[in-house]
């Protein structure tokens, strides 16, 4: 392929913006540590989502100003947070009852690999000297009502992250239903990748060439158009 993906792909902020457009008013949402946390910044006006963090807070808001941190008030990424009106605190077993009991509407996570059957690998590379660290990911992917991934479409080496079968250790089986990538929005249903939106600058064939499983089309494919962020 002669096209340079780096010149056309969405930034992480733009991917986060796109993912935020699908969060409904009143949704209870958990965002993974790091890049997925950016989704909270792009809540559409007029909609109110309540954000959950594993360490026992519902309804947290923006980061405090530097110097105003209270280290008893942090999120799962151990970053200082503030509270929105109506926030609540609870212990860890209740926090994960919210997750495992199916009370969360949406979980958005990062990924190493996503397979066309919905399997997700995002917790361990499986390398010899890698230190495994799972956190709450396995709980979230098995039990949130909707599990979505935000990710670059390919790895830094240019290998597909959307694959026919995960080769890395799994976080969960058959759990992901939508992928917001740097090039496309792809749904997963019945063991297939279904292309919903793609950047206008990339052809279907070029997108398929950087995707590890077959992209199918069900109806029309919309242009993925995201404002500068």
């Amino acid at each position, binding site marked *: 392929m002669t096209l340079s993906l780096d010149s056309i792909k969405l930034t992480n902020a733009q991917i986060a913006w796109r993912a935020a457009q699908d969060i409904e008013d009143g949704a209870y949402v958990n965002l993974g540590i790091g890049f997925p946390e950016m989704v909270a910044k792009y809540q559409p006006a007029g909609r109110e989502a309540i954000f959950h*963090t*594993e*360490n*026992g*807070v519902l309804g947290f808001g923006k980061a405090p100003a530097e110097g105003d*941190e*209270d*280290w*008893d*008030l*942090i999120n799962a990424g*151990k970053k200082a947070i503030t509270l929105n009106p109506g926030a609540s*605190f*609870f*212990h*860890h*077993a209740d*926090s*994960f009852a919210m*997750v*495992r009991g199916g009370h969360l509407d949406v979980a958005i996570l990062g990924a190493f690999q996503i397979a066309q059957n919905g*399997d997700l690998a995002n917790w*361990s590379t499986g390398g010899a*000297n890698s*230190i*495994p*660290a*799972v*956190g*709450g*990911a*396995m*709980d979230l992917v*098995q*039990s949130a009502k909707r599990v979505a991934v935000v990710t670059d479409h390919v790895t830094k080496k240019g290998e597909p992250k959307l694959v026919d079968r995960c080769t890395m*250790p*799994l*976080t*969960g*089986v058959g759990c992901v239903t939508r992928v917001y990538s740097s090039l496309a929005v792809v749904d997963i249903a019945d063991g297939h990748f279904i292309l919903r939106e793609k950047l206008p600058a990339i052809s279907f064939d070029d997108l398929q060439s950087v995707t590890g499983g077959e992209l199918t089309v069900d109806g029309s494919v919309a242009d993925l158009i995201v404002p500068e962020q």
Partner: protein
Amino acid sequence: MDKTTASLAEAVSGIGDGATVMIAGFGGSGAPIELIHALIDKGPKGLTIINNNAGNGHVGIASLIEHGMVDKIICSFPRSSDPVAFNEAYLAGKLQLEVVPQGTLAERIRAAGAGIPAFYTATSYGTDLAKGKPVAEFDGKSYVQERWLKADFALVKGELGDTYGNLTYRMAARNFNPIMAMAADVTIAQVSRIVQPGDIEPENVITPGIFVDHVVEVAEPKQEEVLIREGASYP
């Protein structure tokens, strides 16, 4: 009844070699740093530590590891901003690691406190962390059997504690504290202020005193995050 203890050293005096110790907190939030440091002063060896993480910087659990007191860590997420103590010991083969999904860790602890020896969860089904565990189908979905997780001791951190052991917590510092307090044979709480029975409104008690054995006052507890930013080490 008076569960208060005059000193940190006295509070941890029963923790000996080979003990399994739950240490509450999530990162530094809710971590009973002064109790951990008192345990380092006492110096038992061969400990199994149960915590969400595996220490950060050179204080608290990281310092326990650096002092060679820990044989095994059971946690969900051993990474931190400065995980050098854990990484060095683990990669040198001196420290066993059992990684448990965070919700399973919390529920195993809660189950121990509630007298439930095992339970089934969807979490980890089909993954490496379910290997060797019984799987069963309920209403058409597959679940993994997990066992309770008990400890000899729990070190917890409260805000207020009365002489009966009733505890309150400050904001998100609650995290693992209430469930670990339930799951250990002996629960030792450090609190910012010891008060008299009745001073905590019954409606505001979060951990009832039945789960707590010893209460020691640490009036101005250190925050692990602040210590790490200062580059502190213990001792």
